[in-house]
């Protein structure tokens, strides 16, 4: 259970990116966050694992405060939260397996990871993670030699190698083409259902949000402006979240057809 209690973030420079957000996320939920650029979606996701520090309120994970955790405890909290990024954030110069083993850093400990002396079980967990996203045959390939979609699956495998209870995904498909986006979103959905991992995803394509989300949250100007099921979220709801009428850029299928007819 993730619980936001009047969580606020003010960045240095004075931008209020998160304003007094109160929110409960149940275990095993698939939650999708939508909102315009700058609405605070990335900030909302990053306060969960403490990458962005809170300036007010608190976020508690199974009752443990993220805001008041010391650096050691914060690392322990993070070790159970996998994260997936828009630009994949892989180390391109090294192998896929080494990238996935970054998900084992906390489990392996400093000395072992320093000398790349991973236990067989760490390697096994990494390999199984790669199998789950169907890319294990690339284990010893340099990450830079993979396509964008493949790189993102490695990113998912790295998160899975942490054996996390929560997965955070910040615009995981924004750098991918529509068919690949669906592959990646289906992977996330499958992982959520099969492993029961709480999954929180930022998306800016509304049709994707409706297809893959169970629950949708809308943000505007750092505030929570919508919280409901995907079925309830119709065009009027999205218009309210965005504060404007919808355009072709807001949906992936339209964007795809627009690109195809160019």
């Amino acid at each position: 259970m993730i619980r936001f209690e009047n969580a606020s973030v003010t960045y240095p420079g004075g931008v209020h990116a998160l304003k007094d957000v109160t929110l409960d996320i149940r275990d095993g939920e698939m939650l999708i966050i939508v909102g315009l650029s700058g609405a605070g979606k990335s900030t909302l996701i990053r306060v969960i694992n403490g990458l962005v520090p809170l300036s007010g309120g608190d976020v508690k994970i199974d009752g443990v405060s993220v805001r008041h955790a010391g650096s050691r405890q914060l690392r322990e909290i993070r070790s159970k939260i996998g994260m997936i990024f828009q630009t994949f954030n892989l180390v391109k110069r090294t192998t896929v397996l080494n990238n996935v083993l970054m998900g084992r850093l906390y489990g392996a400990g400093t000395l072992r990871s320093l000398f790349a002396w991973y236990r067989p079980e760490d390697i096994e967990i990494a390999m199984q993670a790669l199998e789950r996203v169907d890319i294990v045959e690339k284990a010893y390939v340099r990450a830079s030699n993979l396509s964008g979609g493949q790189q993102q699956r490695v990113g998912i495998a790295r998160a899975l190698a942490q054996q996390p209870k929560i997965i955070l995904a910040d615009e995981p498909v924004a750098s991918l083409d529509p068919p690949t986006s669906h592959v990646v979103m289906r992977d996330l959905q499958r992982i959520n259902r099969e492993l029961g991992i709480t999954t929180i995803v930022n998306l800016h394509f509304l049709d994707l949000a409706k297809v893959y989300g169970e629950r949708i949250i809308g943000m505007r100007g750092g505030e929570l402006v919508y919280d409901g099921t995907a079925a309830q979220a119709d065009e009027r709801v999205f218009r309210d979240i965005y504060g404007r009428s919808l355009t072709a850029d807001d949906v992936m299928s339209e964007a795809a057809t627009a690109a195809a007819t160019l």
Partner: protein
Amino acid sequence: MTAAAGSGQRPARPRQSLIVPAGLLAFLVITWLSLSDQFGIGFDLGAIIEDITNGGRILITESDSAAQRGLLVPNWAFLPRTVDPMLETFKMAVVASVVGCTVALPVAFTVSRVTAPNGVVLFLGRTVLSVVRAIPDLLYALMFVAAVGIGPLAGIVALVFFNIGVVAKLLSETVDGVDPGPIEAARAGGGNRTQTVRWAVLPQVLPNYVAYSLYTFELNIRASTVIGIVGAGGIGNLLFTQYRFFNWSNVSIVVVTLFVFVLLIELISIWLRRRLV
């Protein structure tokens, strides 16, 4: 914020920094002053040509006695005596590079903005490193000859300090420019500073690190001539003793040996760099 975006107004052109043009101007002025009569360093083309004609006699003097022949009349019989000092220089450079570059690796991560544990350590580390780099290799050699006595050990310690200064500086600047994405990923997964540096940063800068290390190794071979002068061992010692007795034809053999050796090292390191990077 949404409110801040799109006010539609063109921003005022930011003021350009004057540092670069001012710096260029300063260089021009200093160059001009150096060449002028009042403040100059006595740079005079006519005098140089005259000196060269005089010096020419030293260069080409023929004689039966090796000790009196000129610089361009090398005494090949002296060649075998350069082997041992050259090997000593080589060994000194190897040890100094291995030790110096190994120490420089953690130092570089301590003095990069991206990987420093905190601001205080960053500031202190940078200050110490600036001092280390400000001291010239000859001065290190003098200091360690005084401390541990004449011989290659003093030279090695001097070169180690020199190498730490160079490699830590170059590498820390490379670390400043790495892709921050993997660092964020490592931190998000619960990695500590050491693990983040090892797995998110090191793979990104490893080719540069290898290149810098090879480069300092070459610099060490060259520096051996200078540090040998103050008694810190190697080929420089030999060069200086021959020079002191004006054995120009022996000096030229030492110079030739050194030249061939440096060229060889450079070729090998180019080849290595291409294979490793």
